[in-house]
């Protein structure tokens, strides 16, 4: 993994201090991101979305399965990392919900194994109280995270946002190209020259947003809304982490001309190569 993600590992080790990162235990009042009225959208193609839930808390898994099944999602619950990986290998899932703190194979290891072979969207359930854990999931390729204890409606909203995103949308069939970077909207694949990029859904969406308007700043709010399907939260570093992963992947694929630049306090832009 170190080889695959050198850039992000660096950032992580810089944060590995004796004092575990001091955390903002604020009681953010989480505004409903996606109104529940959005449920209507689910009646469409997502009706039979299947979800793998990996969490060692059996009672919580059972209740969550109950809760999510009511929204026409098919839930397979596993109570250990080993079991979860087995299940993941055996069946096809549209999304994985993964608890980070599990005995045996931990959530991060499961995520790593999943990412070796697949770009299936993953939502991490992390322990609030450890910023490092929270963000590290994203660095290893998770699409989004929620801190436990979470509002189950919030989880539902995020699941829907990601599922909606990973379905190819109508009217979006044009391929995008800038310099060496090509985006195939039909297959949801991106490549640099001939090298295919193994992008997660979130990274793909972010790259697409940036490619649509090269040289123009896309706000973090906008990126969060389009790639994660949710509003930007206070101290939300998700977009930045995904961008950092994306930069790493582009660089390793040999892209040198185009650079993703950070416009402090505004957002990100893709600068076309000269």
């Amino acid at each position, binding site marked *: 993994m170190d080889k695959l993600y050198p850039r992000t590992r660096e950032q992580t080790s810089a944060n590995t201090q*004796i004092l575990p990162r*001091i955390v903002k235990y*604020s009681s953010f009042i989480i505004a409903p991101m996606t109104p529940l009225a959005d449920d209507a959208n689910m009646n469409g193609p997502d009706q039979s979305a299947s979800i793998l839930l990996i969490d060692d808390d059996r009672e*919580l898994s059972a209740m969550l399965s109950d809760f999510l099944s009511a929204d026409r999602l098919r839930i397979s619950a596993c109570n250990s990392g080993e079991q979860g990986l087995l299940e993941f290998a055996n069946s096809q899932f549209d999304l994985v919900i993964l608890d980070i703190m599990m005995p045996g194979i931990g959530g991060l290891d499961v995520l790593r194994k999943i990412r070796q072979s697949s770009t299936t969207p993953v939502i991490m359930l992390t322990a609030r*109280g450890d910023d490092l854990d929270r963000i590290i999931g994203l660095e290893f390729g998770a699409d989004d995270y929620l801190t436990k*204890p979470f509002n189950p409606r919030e989880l539902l909203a995020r699941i829907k946002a990601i599922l909606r995103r990973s379905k190819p949308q109508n009217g979006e069939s044009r391929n995008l190209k800038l310099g060496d970077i090509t985006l195939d909207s039909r297959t949801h694949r991106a490549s640099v020259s001939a090298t295919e990029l193994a992008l997660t859904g979130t990274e793909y969406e972010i790259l697409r947003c940036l490619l649509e308007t090269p040289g123009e700043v896309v706000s973090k709010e906008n990126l969060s809304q389009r790639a994660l399907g949710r509003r930007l939260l206070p101290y939300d570093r998700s977009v930045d982490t995904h961008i950092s992963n994306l930069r790493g992947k582009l660089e390793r694929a040999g892209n040198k001309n185009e650079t993703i630049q950070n416009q402090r306090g505004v957002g990100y832009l893709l600068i076309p190569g000269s």
Partner: protein
Amino acid sequence: MHSLFLRFFLSFWLIIGIIISAAATAGFWYAEQVRESIEDFHLSDPLFEASAALDAGGPIALKEWLQDYEPARGITLFIIDEAGNDLINRSMSTWTERTYRRHRDHDKLRSRLSRRDEPQNLRRSRHLSQLIGGDGKTYTFYVSASRIPESIWGDSDVRLLLLIFALLVSGAVSYALASAISSPVRKLRIATVSLADGDLEIRVADSLGNRRDELGLLGRDFDTMATKLQGAAKRQTELSRNISHELRSPLARIRVAVELARRKAGDLSEFSRLDDEAERLDSLIGQILSYTKLEASTDRKFDVVDLGELIGEVVENVNYECKADAAKGVKVIAHTAQKIEIRGHPDALISAIENVMRNAVRHSPPNGEVRVAIKRGETNTTISVSDSGSGVRDDDLPRLFEPFYRTRESSESNSLDGTGLGLAIARRAIELHRGQICARNGAEGGLVVDISLPAS
């Protein structure tokens, strides 16, 4: 050498011993050389020759005789006239002249007449002999051995080289000894400072090498101590994590259960209340853990932080939270355009400033304003957060930063907001940065909290 004591003792003993014996040997040897050369030299013969020359040809013949005279090796024969000058104008070295004068002054009193068997014009004393010319002028003989060391030691270049050699050798020995002591002590000192600043990974035994003296032992003891500290810190972190996990797991279940119940029973207001309480409990757990961590922390591995940007971010986020409580409509206003770089933990600083700001927002009346002012001084930067509330009683002011302290007003209002730890966390985080935090009642009412942080 396995003991510092032995090393010191032997080194100093050796050095002092070498110096003493070298000095004594050189001194004895020199004295011996002088004695031998003087003993070998018998003044009588030249004296008789000189006396004859003086008798025969006066001072001029004496001068000629002296010019032709070749004394034994290492000996100089001066003949000094009444004016105190050498007959053939050789100059005396300061040291020789001083010795000569001492002998002359000493001998004057005891000068005696010459013996019968000696020439008439010769007068002898113990150290100096005199010839008396026909005109009554005296010529004093002085034998100097001062040329002996010069002939042995050679010229002044060689002496300079010897001096440099001596300095180099003694310098090298002293340097080796001093660095053998000071370099491990310096390493230990640097390690101790790092340890105090929170780097529990630091170990010194490897850099001290295989020393088996007291310093080596001290190094290993230091490492043992660091390992124990690291273990304790790790256990503390793990314990916090486990507490966090164990307390929050039931909360997570409660929240899902509440949602399931809401579906079955309809959207009762009690469910929202349950949700709120679960959230409050969650944030209280978080605050307690955060406070304990800060209390135990000595980690001073600081990054460079732009205070202006950091405060801007906090203001933005607190305003975001304020918007969620639209009914209250409190706003945080800050001018944070300037760039102020200090050294610190960004997370701890954010936590401190955020807690102070939240406290101000909480105690502001509806549609009130919270003002944030940054004043940059020479030695420190002061951040003042003032609310538009009613302030607190003066006797409450110093106690505001105690954990779970409630002012009379807040107890009466029975407000459920806040965990009671916010300001305590802020104080601890600021103290970690060697800063100060204090509260006062503003001139226009309302509470002002001043955070003062040292400049980098």
